[in-house]
Every structure is written in structure tokens, then in C-alpha cells.
């Protein structure tokens, strides 16, 4: 296999090639960096690329592998969503507020990947502070969809998804608070997973909405996702919300037979809100599962319509508090002109944050403020419980839930310029999952008018293994996940 093909194969293939000494980490990293350089001006998938730093790390990875050949993942490059603190790397969260912030410590996710010898290719572009569904909210400019440069890749992990889709990286980290991994994965035609809340440490992951945020992965296949999940999963005593469990590795039983699996189809998700084109693709993907021996069961998620209202109360509330630390005092942007402390705060924050972030901070402060807390925040958390109960009930009737990721495919850039709140409504299938804390993934399922469509699979709490088995089985009988955007097939190498 030539280098160019190898770069398009994914983590499993790279690991094997590195293991067989067919190629070195330095060679692989150099090749990807060259691709990134070619793609960056148009795609804008990265905020920071540091060739020297990456090649130094690649060299270290080669030594690591030489010293202990069982380090089977050493040297595999990965793009890091710019929300994970990484020591010595500029960590911006897509914001002017952190434009010059060099993180003085590593997040847990970065630490775990570094420990296995993964090599950071660069810091992936994202919606500012992970707030957005299109990657149009980045201070560093929007990311384009590699399948159609006039369209968005999805968000907030748009850069990570675009990078993997365009072949600039075999894998990338992401975060998913309301769909920010699954939706860009779907819109860019790659695989992406959001684990159960509490499976992956949030330590060092710049917080947006603490009770909803989870770190996850993008890759070219469910098989790769399984390997990557095993690297980043695990209890971390530095994150009080991370859960201490001993689950078997996701990669272990990937080939388990899925015959007889009951697949729940939420009746509320296939109605009016879903575009015809997407519906067709998702339904045939589900048919594929049926042909593999799965059984379809209709399930009822009556609280579905409440998910977006609940989310847009809870997430902004938590964000408004999480972002208070950005005040120009200890790090981050500080206004040049101010006459007193109040102005220091107001100007540093007014200048440092973009409009979507401000919108959510304002909303959040409002719903938490005196007199409104019970009616909005508390009520939203109660409705959240009801949404989780819906899923709990559903999972007594089925083993996984299947459905769309988004009502449409990727929309054109600037579609919601005048009406940002309208964009929120497109998160209707992804948000309920975060509210309940469930694991879910998106895998390529086909195309609608040339744009990728994703199939969402949702599992019961802690059943990532089952999810990945199902996805992997789907990917052994279909080849949607191997498709690549024509625009990026000519990169060298």
C-alpha cells in the first residue's frame, strides 16, 4: 500500500504499518502536515499548526515504539479539538478571549493520548467555547465542509470532523454537549462517538455546560473509534463527575454478532421535522440492520419536543457560570483601556467573547437570576429527568435506538446569519441524548443530493461496546464509511 492510501485508511491500518516498520511516525506526521498545509487556506480546519512541535513528538513516538514494541498506537497522529488544554500548545477554544493562551498543563484526554504515543497534528478549529452547530462561530473564521466548500461542516467540532473527512488526520478528538461530535460527523461523512456521561474525564477540557459536556472521538470507522475510546476512557480522581467502573474494553468484543438485536425506532423522530431526503437514507440504513438480523421496535419518546427548551435553559445557565472566570485578571484577553475594575471586567469580556457566547451567557444569567430560577432552571432539570425516564423505559423494549442525527444535511454557510436561534432547532435528535447522559454515535449511512447523511445509534448507559458492535457490523456490510470527498482526493501525498 502506498503512503497516500495508508493515510486514508485510519488508525487500525496505521498501527499495523507502524508495527511492521513499513513507515515511521515522522514520515506519517510529515505527510499529514503536508496535506494540512495544502488544505488549510480553503478548509480552515485548524487554528494552530506547529510543524516543529509535531515532528519532535513524532520522533519521540518512534523512540517509544522502538523501546517498547507493544506500544501499538505510538506514532499515530491525531488532531486535537482546540478545547483540550495541552501544555505548551496554544489553546484557544475558538475564542479571541484565549487567542494567546498557552496552556500550562495537559488535560486528561491529551495526557492519555500522549501516554500511548499519539502525535498531535494540530489544534482543530471549533465554534467558540463549543457553542454552535456549524463552526461559523469561531473567532478564527469558519470551517468549510470538505464535501462542499459552500456549506458548513457542522459544529461545534467542525474542524475535527473536516480534518478527518478530508484525510488530514486519521482521527480527531471532539466534544459533544448537544450533538457537537455526532452532527459534524454526520455532515462530513465520518464516524463519531459521544460516550456515556462520566466515562471520559473532563479535567482540562474547557467547560461549556458541565453536566452535558463529554469528550469523544472522530475516526474513519467504528473499529477505530473502539480503539480510541479505550485510550481515553477511565475514572480520573481529578474529575469528581467521572465514574469509577470496570468495563471491558470496547475493542474487545467488536465482532460480536448482532442478530436478534432489538433496534428501537422513536416514532417522534420520523415525523414532520425530518427532511424527506434524510429520512430515505436513514430508513434504508435501518433496513440494512434488519437484513443483518436485527428486529425493529417502535418506541415512544413523548418528551422529545421538550429537549430543546430544556437544553437552551440548562446549557446557557451552566455556561454563564463557567465562563465567569474569563475576566482578564489571571489569563486571557485583557482590555487595553479601562478606568476601574468594573470596566476591566466588562470590556475584557465584551471584547473577548463573540456574539453567540454573549447570547448564551446573557440567557444563562437570566434563567438563574432571582425570581426566575424555579420557573426556568429548576423546571428544565425536572423535564430533563422526564426525558431520561423516557429513554429508560424505551431501553426495556430495545437494545439500541436508531434514528437520524439531524433533520437535514449540511446547510450553506450564512444560512442563519439573521436568525441564530433558528439554528438551535436542528439539534432535536442529538440534544436528548446529552440531557440523559447516554452514549451515542453517528456513522455514515449514505448521501442526500451529494451530501453525507449519518445514522445515529444510541445505547443504554455504559453500553458503548454494544453500540460499537452494531456500528461495526453495519460497516462490514456497507461501505459508506469508506467514501471520501472528491475535493480532497488530490492532496499530496
Amino acid at each position, binding site marked *: 500500500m502506498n503512503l497516500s492510501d495508508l493515510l486514508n485508511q485510519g488508525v487500525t491500518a496505521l498501527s499495523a504499518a507502524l508495527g511492521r516498520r513499513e513507515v515511521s511516525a515522522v514520515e506519517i506526521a510529515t505527510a499529514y502536515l503536508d496535506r494540512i498545509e495544502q488544505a488549510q487556506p480553503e478548509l480552515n480546519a485548524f487554528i494552530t499548526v506547529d510543524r516543529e512541535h509535531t515532528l519532535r513528538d513524532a520522533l519521540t513516538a518512534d523512540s517509544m515504539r522502538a523501546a517498547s514494541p507493544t506500544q501499538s498506537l505510538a506514532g499515530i497522529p491525531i488532531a486535537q479539538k482546540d478545547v483540550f*488544554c495541552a501544555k505548551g500548545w496554544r489553546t484557544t477554544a475558538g475564542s479571541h478571549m484565549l487567542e494567546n493562551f498557552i496552556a500550562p498543563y495537559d488535560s486528561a484526554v491529551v495526557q492519555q493520548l500522549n501516554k500511548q504515543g499519539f502525535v498531535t497534528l494540530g489544534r482543530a478549529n471549533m465554534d467558540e467555547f463549543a457553542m454552535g452547530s456549524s463552526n461559523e462561530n469561531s473567532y478564527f473564521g469558519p470551517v468549510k465542509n470538505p464535501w462542499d466548500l459552500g456549506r458548513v461542516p457542522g459544529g461545534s467540532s467542525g474542524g475535527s470532523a473536516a480534518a478527518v473527512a478530508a484525510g488530514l488526520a486519521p482521527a480527531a478528538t471532539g466534544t459533544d454537549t448537544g450533538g457537537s461530535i455526532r452532527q459534524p460527523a454526520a455532515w462530513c461523512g465520518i464516524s463519531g462517538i459521544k460516550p456515556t456521561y462520566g466515562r471520559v474525564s473532563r479535567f482540562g477540557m474547557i467547560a461549556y455546560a458541565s453536566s452535558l459536556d463529554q469528550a469523544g472521538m472522530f475516526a474513519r470507522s467504528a473499529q477505530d473509534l473502539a480503539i480510541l475510546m479505550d485510550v481515553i476512557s477511565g475514572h480520573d480522581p481529578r474529575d469528581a*463527575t467521572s465514574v469509577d467502573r470496570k468495563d471491558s474494553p470496547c475493542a474487545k468484543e467488536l465482532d460480536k454478532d448482532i442478530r436478534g438485536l432489538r433496534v428501537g425506532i422513536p416514532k417522534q423522530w420520523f415525523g414532520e421535522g425530518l427532511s424527506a431526503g434524510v429520512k430515505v437514507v436513514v430508513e434504508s440504513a435501518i433496513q440494512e440492520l434488519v437484513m443483518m438480523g436485527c428486529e425493529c421496535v417502535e418506541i415512544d419518546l413523548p418528551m422529545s419536543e421538550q429537549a430543546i427548551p430544556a437544553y437552551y435553559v440548562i446549557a446557557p445557565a451552566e455556561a454563564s*457560570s463557567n465562563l465567569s472566570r474569563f475576566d482578564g485578571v489571571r489569563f486571557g484577553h485583557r482590555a487595553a483601556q479601562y478606568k476601574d475594575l468594573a470596566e476591566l471586567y466588562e470590556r475584557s469580556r465584551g471584547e473577548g467573547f463573540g456574539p453567540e457566547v454573549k447570547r448564551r451567557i446573557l440567557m444563562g444569567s437570566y434563567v438563574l437570576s*432571582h425570581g426566575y430560577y424555579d420557573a426556568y432552571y429548576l423546571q428544565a432539570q425536572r423535564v430533563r429527568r422526564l426525558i431520561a425516564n423516557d429513554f429508560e423505559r424505551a431501553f426495556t423494549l430495545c437494545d439500541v435506538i436508531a434514528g437520524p442525527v439531524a433533520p437535514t444535511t449540511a446547510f450553506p454557510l450564512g444560512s442563519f446569519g439573521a436568525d441564530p436561534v433558528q439554528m438551535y432547532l436542528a439539534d432535536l435528535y442529538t440534544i436528548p441524548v446529552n440531557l440523559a447522559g447516554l452514549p451515542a454515535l453517528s456513522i455514515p449511512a449514505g448521501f442526500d443530493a451529494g451530501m453525507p447523511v449519518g445514522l445515529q445509534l444510541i445505547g443504554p448507559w455504559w453500553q458503548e461496546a454494544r453500540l460499537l458492535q452494531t456500528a461495526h457490523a453495519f460497516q462490514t456490510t456497507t461501505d459508506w464509511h469508506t467514501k471520501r470527498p472528491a475535493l480532497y482526493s488530490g492532496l499530496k501525498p
Partner: protein
Amino acid sequence: MTRANWEVVIGLETHAQLSTQSKIFSGASVAFGAEPNTQACAVDLGLPGVLPVPNHAAVERAIRFGLAVGAHIAPVSIFARKNYFYPDLPKGYQISQMEIPVVQGGSLRIQTKAGEKIVNLTRAHLEEDAGKSLHEDFQGQSGIDLNRAGTPLLEIVTEPEMRSSEEAVAYARALHALVRWIEICDGNMQEGSFRCDANVSVRPVGQKEFGTRCEIKNLNSFRFLERAIEFEIKRQIELIEEGGQVVQETRLFDPDRDETRSMRSKEDAHDYRYFPDPDLPPLCISEEWIAEVASGMPELPEARRQRYMNELGLTEYDAGLLTATREAGEYFEALRGAAKGADAKLCANWVNGELSAAINRAGLELADAKVNPTQLAGLLVRLTDGTISGKIAKELFEIMWSEGGEADALIESRGLQQISDTGALEGVLKELIAKHPEQVEEYRGGKEKVFGFFVGQAMKATQGKANPAQLNTLLKALLLGG
């Protein structure tokens, strides 16, 4: 101003810094006096991405406190965020507990001139301390030191049940002694380990509704607490009597001017937007954990006081002194343990008497007393068994204090034994009687006082070692016998 028409209502909020090694939500040290910002780790600084993780020992100390005041310890309590902007608050919110605190209810007994009173507590909760702002040396600016940010605090809140500055100070002292007794706080007020805020209001005698209250913050001495409250009471009464209204506000005490002043508010409208901290799942405290902590608790002051009165027969006064601090009780217990045969009252008298006087004269704490319980026990044993007299015992104590040494060795080396031998004493007395015939006649003539003269002379002659009881018996017999 007619004070008698007014009733004063006081509630106290005390912040006790818990005596842990590390901070409440991070592994940074809490040691006092470090160079600025050398004990402020990433979590304390609120760097992007950091998360709080609670300190087991801080929770354990909260449980201890709850047990010591007879409170309900919540099986599940919640950490909440109190949101406001201030430079010494790095995250822009303080992690505290709002609706469901770890300790609920409880009470403390206080003593005042009027007698005993129970002060009920509303609650006690865990929270993190903020950093410090320094204003000197920085032209038009303030320098922020975040070493203190994240130090564990227990905020203890009373019901508004105190009715005078005397009661407030008595409560503050009792609480101070208690937190030191159960070893959850070192009580070092200079270092800020124990800080009181007083909520003060007044109302006309007989009125049911409370008046508007003012909060006086950060009083770090009992004297300041008293003076601040007194000033505030006068201020409020005068204000109302002149037709004004008390404005609810926070005030600071200025010890130089002896007055309270309004503080410029830190946060407009005080809208703290409390909500449960999503980074911290509920704090669960099991019955087993509470039982474990309970079994490790020392005997509490009140229980000990009762025991001393009921089982040992000590007076309320003596028992009170011996239980005012844990050190006093422990000295006493150690003393009794070593002084076999010595009466409890005797031990109490010596601890509250000679020992106490000696440490006061020397300006020492009990822990640094120059006579330890073993030494004193040796002395008391010999006093009890008659080896030495009461008078000599006092001398022996002085010797031990200034030179050290064990009772038996000193008694031996300095010949301090009591002279109880009848023969020897008779000899001395007969000599004295022969020497002072007029006084003998005076005594026989009815002048009782002369007895003392002979006792004094006999003591002189024996260097104070005559056994007083023996001496008295023999002297009486000899004087009357003829």
C-alpha cells in the same frame, strides 16, 4: 437614647478554617504565610478546564462539628455555586452549600452573668475561602494573592437568639473553645482561622417583627466583636429615635475609630444566582461514617463537666474551669491517672489553684507548664499519704516549677518530710513552752489566739515540716495539761 425600650437581636455567622493539610477542592497546601501565589494551583486559580474535587478530611471535620453540637448531619447535601465577580474570587463563583447544607440545627450552651443559655444553630456548611487583596505598595491598583483561595471553611450560623453583646461574645468564645476542643480548627484569630460576622438589629420591646438588620463583617477578635456590636446597637437606636430608618447593608468595623462603617457593595443587588454545582455530585454521608467519626470523638466539654460534677463530686465552678479548654481537662485526667490515692477534689484544687496561678504569673499556656501531670501527681500522692504537709507541698511545687525534678527525689534530697513523730514534736513543743511561760499563762487564761503563736514558733523550729494535725493535738494537750 433610652436603651431600656429596645430589644437587641443578634445572630452570628462564623467562618472557621478547617485544620486540613490541603485545600477543600484541590491538593494545594493551606499552610499560612507562604509567598504570594505559591500555594495557588491550577484548580485554585480557576484556569480553563480545571475541576474541583472535595477533600475527605474537610467533610470529616464537618461531621465532627455536627456531632459536637447535637445537629442533624445530612445524609445527602449539595454543593452550590454562589456567583459574583471580585478579584479574590478566581472562578467568578464561590463553591458553597445553599439549600441543603451538611449540618442542620444543633446548639451551644453559653454562660453569662445572667446564667446559662442555649443558643440554637441554624446550620453549618462547607465552602471555599477566597484569596486576599493587598492595597499598599500598588499605586491605584490592588495586588491579588490567591494562596488562601480554596482553603476549607465551615460557616456556622446561629438563629438570631442573642440579645446582647455579652451573649454574642460568650457564644463566640464557647464556639472558639469547641472547635479547638474537637480539633477541627486551630482558632488562630490573628491568622484569620476564626472570623465572625455579626447580624445586628433592634426592635421596640414587645414587637414581634424583627427590625432591619445590618451585617458587620470580619471581626477577628472578641474585643472587636463586642465593641462593634455595641456601636452598632447605639447607632441603630439613635437613628430610629431621630426618625430615620436602618438600611440593610454590610458594614465594617474600624477599630481605630471604634465605629462601624458602610461597605461599598461588592455585588449589585446581591443576585448570586445560586444553583447546584454541576461539577460536584451530591455529598453522601453514610450512617457508618458518622458512627466511625463519633467513636473517635473526644469526650465533649459539657459531658465532661457533668461527669466531673456527678461522678467526682467537683463543684460546678471547678468543673467549669477544668472543662473550659481541652488542655485543662487532659491535664487533670493525666494527673488523676498518675496520682493513685489522691482525691479528685484535691487534684482539681491544685490544677485550678497553684498550677493555674503559676502559669498565669509566667504568662504561659497550660501546655508549657513547668510542672507536668506526672510530677504534680507525685507531689499529691505524698501530700495525701502525709509524707509532706500542705505548706511544704506548696514549697515543693515552687521548687519543681523553677528547678524541675520528681517529688520523691526532692523530698529526699531536701529533707522535706513531715515531722509526725510524737516524740520529736513533743520535744520541740516542750522547749517552746518552757521558753514562753507568759504566753502559756495567757492561753490558759482564755486567750485562744496565743495558740497560733506557739504553732508559728513550732513551724519555725521545724522549718515548716511539723505535721500540723499532730502538732495541734500535742500542743493542745501540753498547754492544757500543765
